[in-house]
């Protein structure tokens, strides 16, 4: 019996396995519905928003301000943001700066390898619309061309305080979102 492909309720029930899989399918729907009610949903969202771990990748020059934001004075770790480990363990990708076509391919690969739920912050004018280099031959004008972006942080480069504001906005967005339809 496989929980991934529950038999449709209006198909002919031919074997015992089919009957069990319908029962399990209905059970997993029930679990989803229960988890998405207020108290459990708030706990899960609280855990997600205060432990956003970004992938260790720097795209271009905004990385200098991301580094300064993670540093001693504007400490991003007090928001729970800690760049650590492999990208399979991360749930946030910060597109810092200009995206060249060569890098865009790899960013998409990295995004696809991250586990759900995953969020995207587009940091800097170049990641929003191409910025200062918008007419160059080798760049992509904005991260939204190939990734679903959650928060845009404008600036060239944005101050660390602006990045912190962006992270707080993302946390508010997570607080008010449902647990399951994320992907």
């Amino acid at each position, binding site marked *: 019996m496989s929980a991934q492909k529950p038999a449709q309720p209006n198909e002919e029930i031919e074997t015992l396995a089919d009957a069990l899989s319908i029962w399990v399918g209905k059970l997993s729907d029930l679990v989803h519905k229960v988890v998405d009610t207020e108290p459990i949903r708030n706990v899960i969202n609280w855990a997600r928003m205060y432990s956003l771990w970004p992938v260790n990748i720097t795209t271009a020059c905004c990385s200098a301000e991301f580094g300064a934001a993670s540093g*001693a004075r504007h400490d991003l770790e007090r928001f729970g943001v800690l760049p650590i480990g492999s990208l399979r363990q991360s749930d946030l990708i910060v597109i810092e700066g200009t995206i060249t*076509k060569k890098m865009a391919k790899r960013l998409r690969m990295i995004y696809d390898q991250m586990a759900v739920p995953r969020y995207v912050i587009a940091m800097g004018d170049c990641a929003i619309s191409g910025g200062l*280099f918008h007419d160059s031959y*080798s760049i992509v004008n904005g991260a939204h061309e*190939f990734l679903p972006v959650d928060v845009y942080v404008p600036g*060239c480069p944005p101050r660390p305080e602006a990045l912190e504001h962006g992270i707080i906005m993302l946390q508010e967005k997570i607080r008010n979102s449902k647990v399951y339809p994320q992907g």
Partner: protein
Amino acid sequence: MTTTEKPATSSALETVTQEEPGSQTMTLSVGPQHSGSGHMRLIVELDGDIIINAQPDPGYVHRGIEKIIEVRNIIRSIPVIERPSIIDASNLNHAWVRAIEELQGVETPARGQYLRCLLNEMNRIMSHLYWLSIYGVFLGHTTMFMWPLGDRELFIDLAESLTGARITYSYLVPGGVRRDLPPGFTEEAIKRTEYFEKRLDEYENIFFENPLFTSRAKGVGVLSKEKAIELGCTGPTLRGSGVDVDLRKDDPYAAYGELDFKVHTRPDGDSYSRAMVHMDEMRESSQLIRQILKKLPSGPIRRKAPIVVPRGEAYGRVESARGECSFYMVGEGGDKPYRARFITGSYRNLAAIPAVLKGVRLADMPTSWWSIDYWPVEADR
């Protein structure tokens, strides 16, 4: 879900060669996502865990700046040419205005020259501190990541009070600089540089005289003097191999001819030498800031210069934090250059990466690679 234009058919992923089964070596692709600074890839060929051959694969941040500066006028290009090495923006800006001023025949007044040197030296310290903090990420040394970034904020505040921006100043224009010192700047700068030099003593004790660092960096990633010269290396990479070349002394520009400072070199050419050259330069820049503020002459800071690139050729060179940054500019009249060739320190040091990494263990690769201070954004432009 694709990018707006079709991706190129010849992918660099296919340049990694396939070995025959049973061969001795293994080819590994390191990057562009790895712990430490991203946006660069190395294709290393390993025999066991010794690197036989390391080929860099740059181009992840290639934004076509040389083409952009041919279509924007010389003032609007200043933010564009500052961005390659954003943490060292003032030095790149200085190379640009040097080339233009040579073509125009404009001379900056003395006070403007000293203020240029002031911002250049502050940028040198900021860039070296950023280098040191990313070194901490590569080595797995969290204190080495946090402390330099905290002390860097001392100088970022000073730069912000002088120019109005944290890291991208656009402060130097042809003919001078844009703003004068705010009141109270000199006392604040002297206090901060004196505090910073005490911090440098602590850094030496905790980070560099620590057997955890010396055992990882001494004798690792050696670049001989002859190889460094014939490969065209520059900056701390060259000075760490015993060659005492520094453009501020060899071909003095701005106010450096009247200032008193030493050029620091180390003879061994290994990662430890290059790291210590960075430390010595930070100390030297800190005392240079105090010297500049003491010797600062009075007078105007800017002479009006037209927004035009006269006919001719000029070569503007500056010693930036990572080495020599230069512009070869060809003008034909009008407000845009006909050709502006941009050669940066990291681009020249790209040639040193295969030479430094040959024979190094894979585990020592981050130590050796980052000691060259190769900043991919600056090399790709």
